[in-house]
């Protein structure tokens, strides 16, 4: 009985569908090309996308509050360049990394201030920061990647291994786990959800909404900044044009993972599986030697199909649809006066 109900709840879980899609893709690629299903390839995928995994996991918490960050790409580029500049100036790498993280977290502070203190919508605030940060990244290196005077161990971070595992994978695992614990085991996850679901209710329940949102913006900025450091150390240079679509990948992973833009719902696990789906598709299609333009088309199709399956045909949804419920469309469309004032141009 117990087992059966456990099983049922697993099947009803939205993430289950995602997991099935993930497995199906793996099976397909493994059968279609011999170089896919290999430990080395999986290590590659994880190392290459470690930053995406932990940033998306952390950004899931932020998205649960109904906020999101478009400036992660800019932050990543800026941090990578800054880290390389500092390292090139002869600073010890740890110090360079710490300073970079501190500088990178400023993105979060500014985003957070704009959103909480000045009521600017997260879209505008972080889009603005995307432009500004991207410009600054190019500015501080004059548009040229930074590689002069880098110490010999500059790439040490991404080269080292612990217990036979590349350190980047460990960082990703730790980062994802921390976000998962925050989301599922601590009050932050609950508060984030409450804020996204009904900001007024959360505020009136005594939650310091601004502090939670601010904190999460900083957390995401720290992740993006660390992502920048890791990328710089991976490619061996501070490149201001790196990882152009990082922010898009992060948001796509989160949304595909079942967290809506308006927040209130979502799981870190879902995000991670969705991110893995995106990663696997990219890798598998390359392994199949598919022309990059066809890859783009296929990615688009898979995105739409996956999200449709996820939103429309997951078992949970099917059950919900059987019950004529009147509560579902309500979320996010409430119209208190406070919300009105927020919306009137501030939420953009």
């Amino acid at each position, binding site marked *: 009985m117990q087992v059966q109900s456990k099983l049922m709840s697993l099947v009803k879980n939205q993430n289950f569908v995602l997991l099935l899609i993930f497995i199906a893709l793996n099976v397909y690629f493994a059968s279609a090309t011999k*170089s896919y299903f290999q430990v080395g390839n999986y290590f590659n995928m994880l190392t*290459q996308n470690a930053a995406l995994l932990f940033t998306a996991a952390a950004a899931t918490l932020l998205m649960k509050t109904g906020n999101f960050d478009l400036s992660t790409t800019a932050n990543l580029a800026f941090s990578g360049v800054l880290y390389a500049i500092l390292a090139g100036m002869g600073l010890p790498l740890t110090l360079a990394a710490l300073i970079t993280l501190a500088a990178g977290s400023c993105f979060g502070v500014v985003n957070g201030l704009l959103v909480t203190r000045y009521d600017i919508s997260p879209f505008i605030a972080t889009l603005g920061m995307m432009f500004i940060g991207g410009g600054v990244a190019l500015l501080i290196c004059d548009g040229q*990647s930074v590689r002069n005077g880098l110490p010999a161990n500059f790439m040490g971070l991404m080269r080292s291994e612990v217990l036979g595992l590349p350190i980047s994978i460990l960082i990703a695992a730790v980062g994802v786990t921390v976000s998962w614990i925050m989301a599922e085991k601590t009050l932050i996850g609950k508060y984030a959800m409450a804020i996204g679901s009904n900001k007024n209710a959360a505020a009136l329940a005594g939650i310091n909404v601004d502090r939670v949102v601010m904190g999460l913006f900083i957390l995401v900025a720290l992740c993006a900044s660390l992502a920048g450091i890791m990328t710089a150390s*991976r490619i061996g240079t501070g490149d201001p044009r790196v*990882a152009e679509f990082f922010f898009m990948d992060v948001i796509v992973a989160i949304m595909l993972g079942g967290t809506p833009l308006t927040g209130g719902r979502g799981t870190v696990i879902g995000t991670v599986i969705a991110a893995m789906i995106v990663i696997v598709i990219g890798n598998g299609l390359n392994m199949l030697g598919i022309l*990059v333009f066809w890859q783009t088309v296929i990615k688009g199709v898979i995105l739409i199909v996956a999200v449709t399956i996820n939103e429309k045909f997951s078992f949970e949804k099917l059950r919900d649809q059987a019950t004529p419920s009147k509560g579902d469309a309500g979320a996010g469309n409430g119209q208190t006066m406070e919300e009105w004032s927020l919306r009137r141009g501030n939420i953009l």
Partner: protein
Amino acid sequence: DKIVLGKIPYTLEHSYHQSIVEIFADHAEKYYGAETIVVDGQANSDTTLTAVENMISQGVDAIALHSPDIGMTATAVAKAHAAGIPITTTLIYPESKNAPHIAPQEALSSHRMGVVATEQWIAANPDKPVKVAILDFGGFEQVVALRTAPFVAGVKSIAPNAEVVAQQNGFGNTVKSMEIMLDILQANPDVNIIFGANDDMALGALAAAEQLGRGQMDNGVPLTEVIAGVDGGENAMIKIFDPSSSFKLTHGQVRDNARAEVDTMVAMVRGELPMDSWMEIPTLSQEIDYWNTSLAGAQRFLQENFSFDGSLEELLSN
């Protein structure tokens, strides 16, 4: 056993790179019976390195890399070498200088274009001081070293008082370049030499000039300005050999590059060349301009490099 070659083009979004991949695969197949795997670097160092890593894990026999970044190139070369896989670079090489490099002699041709463009302008308009506008990719140092700086040097070697009045990022894109060139020409109507760091940008500059009623030559005699580009695709060639258009110069090399890459790689795979010592394999980036290149020469260039199967002359006549 069949040799498997990995080719990572800079980005397949440009015809130059599409052609190089095509000729590369052809040549590998025809001369060595080798198979080619292509993964696009998408003009991004992160993606390009990922492609290198994946090729290593796929166990290709050799890699040809056109990287967007000098620092990343060193990393990629080190990674390939660590896995015992030979790798070649082109255009952008690592400062570590530890692998064969296919080096199109772009700087020479860029310089020469600067010289020819300036000479032509001054000959036709001796009283108008030379003002240069440049569209580049936004500060890539390799582009500076191989294209914009030598071009300007070429200009200055003829007109020492020439001045670069505007330099903007054209994003390698015709439409963006057109918009930006409109603004540049608005601010500096006296610009008379324009250099686009690839043909797409030069074509954008030409479109902008045309919209302003410029972009014209009188049977090859500069009236409004002289435009130069890089690559030498057919779109550019048509304009270059149109006596009334002001886009008149370009340079490029596809076939020899691709072949040199393949030959070098196979030689390394066969152990005929050491894989980890610096070697520059120069290829000529042929300069083509309206005044010094024959139509037949241009036709041949297109056929060799861009698998062009039409007739330039025919295209020009209608």
